[in-house]
């Protein structure tokens, strides 16, 4: 049995979500059609809208389904003309959507520097985008504090919650975000569906134009099976939040053991508030790419940086923003746990990681204990 520890890239579909997808696939019907086939599919979409809204404490009418987190981020960032600020550790889909955006610095732990944000908030800033939790390090941003500062200056706050939703409890009203991005496949739903959740009263210019779907906010026939699966996954994820909190024990076990095996490892963002499932482990002198491939040969899947940029050999922009030099930013892997992860997975990872680290003539003192 192989060990999959790349849940931040994508996580297996929850069985309940798979059933919801399969049920919807078995039915014909376009939710915009007024006949019975259409009305039944419309109901599936509306039910999912409620459960997704519940997961983030939003009102159902604010949930606009999209093709995924990337589309939702692009929509949010492009909908408002005027100057935009984004944190230096945002996902590429936020950075790429507005390459003209100002970059809010983060500290060595990857947390947004609030004073710097306040200084950058000039009058022409219309929108600020800061993620709730980082995909590479799991570091959680103080969104409620950021929202207060942003709103004091009359700007809007968008929050990419793709990695946080389903892993930690979250409430959009408590966060104070005006727009929130979600992705189904990061929380046990299918690929190809996500949402931009709008606070009541906010009406951004659409990105995709055409038919009047999603109250004229997002054109295109709704991905009904995907949306139904998203709804089921959101419900299951909400029910299992206490279990998700326990992933931190497995994550901590990994970090304790790799540190014991090799004292010069560095866990990035370890002193900040983090998601319970993510660990960004730097090992000097071995590139992340090499580590990923050598662990893969041992049947363990992790990643170097985010999945989107794999293939590229560029050092992580997240670690660079945290002040790491280029080598350090290249030498990290991301280990991300999920709902299928067991203690055995942790043991297999630690064993494979130990062999890799010692096989390169490193952690000499530990070699015997690993063998």
């Amino acid at each position, binding site marked *: 049995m192989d060990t999959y520890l790349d849940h931040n890239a994508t996580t297996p579909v929850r069985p309940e979500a798979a059933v919801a997808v399969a049920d919807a696939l078995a039915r014909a019907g376009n939710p915009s059609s007024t006949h019975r*086939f259409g009305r039944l599919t419309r109901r599936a979409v509306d039910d999912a809208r409620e459960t997704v809204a519940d997961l983030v404490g939003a009102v159902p009418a604010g949930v606009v389904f999209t093709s995924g987190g990337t589309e939702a981020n692009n929509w949010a960032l492009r909908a408002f003309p005027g100057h935009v600020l984004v944190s230096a550790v945002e996902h590429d889909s936020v950075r790429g959507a507005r390459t003209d955006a100002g970059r809010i610095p983060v500290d060595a732990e990857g947390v947004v520097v609030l004073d710097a944000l306040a200084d950058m908030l000039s009058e022409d800033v219309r929108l600020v985008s800061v993620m709730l939790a980082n995909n590479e390090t799991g570091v959680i941003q103080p969104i409620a504090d950021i929202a207060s500062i942003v709103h004091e200056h009359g700007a809007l706050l968008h929050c990419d919650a793709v990695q946080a939703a389903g892993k930690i409890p979250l409430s959009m009203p408590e966060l104070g975000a005006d727009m929130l991005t979600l992705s189904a496949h990061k929380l046990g739903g299918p690929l190809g569906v996500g949402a931009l959740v709008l606070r009541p009263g906010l009406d951004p210019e659409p990105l995709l134009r055409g038919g009047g779907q999603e109250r004229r906010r997002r054109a295109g026939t709704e991905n009904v099976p995907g949306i139904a699966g998203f709804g089921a996954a959101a419900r299951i994820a909400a029910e299992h939040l206490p279990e998700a909190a326990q992933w931190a024990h497995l994550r901590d076990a990994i970090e304790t053991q790799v540190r014991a095996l090799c004292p010069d490892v560095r866990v990035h963002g370890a002193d900040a508030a983090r998601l319970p499932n993510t660990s960004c482990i730097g090992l000097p002198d071995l590139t992340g790419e090499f580590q990923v491939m050598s*662990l893969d040969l041992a049947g363990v899947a992790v990643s170097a940086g985010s999945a989107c940029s794999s293939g590229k050999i560029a050092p992580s922009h997240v670690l660079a923003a945290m002040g790491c030099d280029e080598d350090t930013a290249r030498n990290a892997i991301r280990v991300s746990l999920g709902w299928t992860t067991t203690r055995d997975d942790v043991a297999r990872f630690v064993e494979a990681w130990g062999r890799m680290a010692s096989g390169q003539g490193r952690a000499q003192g530990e070699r015997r204990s690993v063998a």
Partner: protein
Amino acid sequence: MTGAPTAIYLDHQATTPVDPRVLDAMLPWFSETFGNAHSTQHAWGQQAADATEAARERVAALIGAQAREIVFTSGATESNNLAIKGAVRFALRYGRGRHIVTVATEHKCVLEACAALAEEGARVSVVGVGPDGLVDVPALADAIDDDTVLVSVMAVNNEIGVVQPLAEIGALCRARGVLFHTDAAQAAGKIALDVEAMQVDLLSISGHKLYAPKGVGALYVRRRPRARLLAEISGGGQERGLRSGTLAVPLVVALGEACAIAHAETDREGARLLVLRTDLLERLRAAQPDLFLNGHGELRVPGNLNVGFPGIDAEALMADMPEVAVSTGSACTSALVEPSYVLRALGLDDERAGASIRIGLGRFTTREEIATAAEMISAAVNAQRAGGSARAAE
């Protein structure tokens, strides 16, 4: 009321059911093999990446393209938005023209994309169609000028099913040096498409109109000569930078399977549907001699019929026959009460447009269903004409 409706589904231009073979191909990708297709450094990701590339080959094969010319999207609306806004924004940015030519009967998302571009400084010419729904090609040629960037003409209309002369328009566009985009959402899998023979530069495909699921589509983007686009969704740089976002592996696999099936079966299935449609039209005509047909009688896809019954209120007709699912206009605009802009463009007045229904036959439509549907439709017409609806009479 729970579970699947038992009614007869004749609304295949709105959406098609998923073919069981497509379902079998995609379902394992939800759970057994779930990797991120961009995580190619580990085995899970590589397996997913291999599957998406195989699917890309199959989509390309359906339209005579190369695999690397296929960009996966979330559906035809996104494909149309990317093709039109992408091409025109590229031209606007680099000063290569700002004029678009399109047709009055295009899908809403094409017309809306053009409207969005008009706000950004583009100029839009909308060419009309004849009473048969076919585009006026000489008028189209006249509309193209030195400033024209793109011509967008749909392959098959979603309401009346007429097939536009793509090869003729393609040759015209190539000769004039402008890009030719065609929305083939209603055409793929129903008529033969060949981007080389038709000289198409950009072509949109929808999954759920060809027995794959909703939420997936594709855009063909010609490489030689290259059609240049500005991406609308940026980020991880997937799909050669033209469409960022994690590929939905099960959906992409499903689209590939659906295209392969369509490629193998288009001719046979078309012949079968033509027999059924001819039978349906004959039955309806026999019962309702004053029936009128909207759109060209022959140059239309075999699965489409669009007919009107003088004096009838089509919305009320639909309500009176809940066992037969047909539509008035396109699904996207079904909730609107105004008459179809497509039928209006053919020259129908409000009354005749409001008396028309679209009947969409598909892969699983049977001879028995056609016979039953013809009776039900005709009975509902009779009941309405007898004063009061069938339902009210119950």
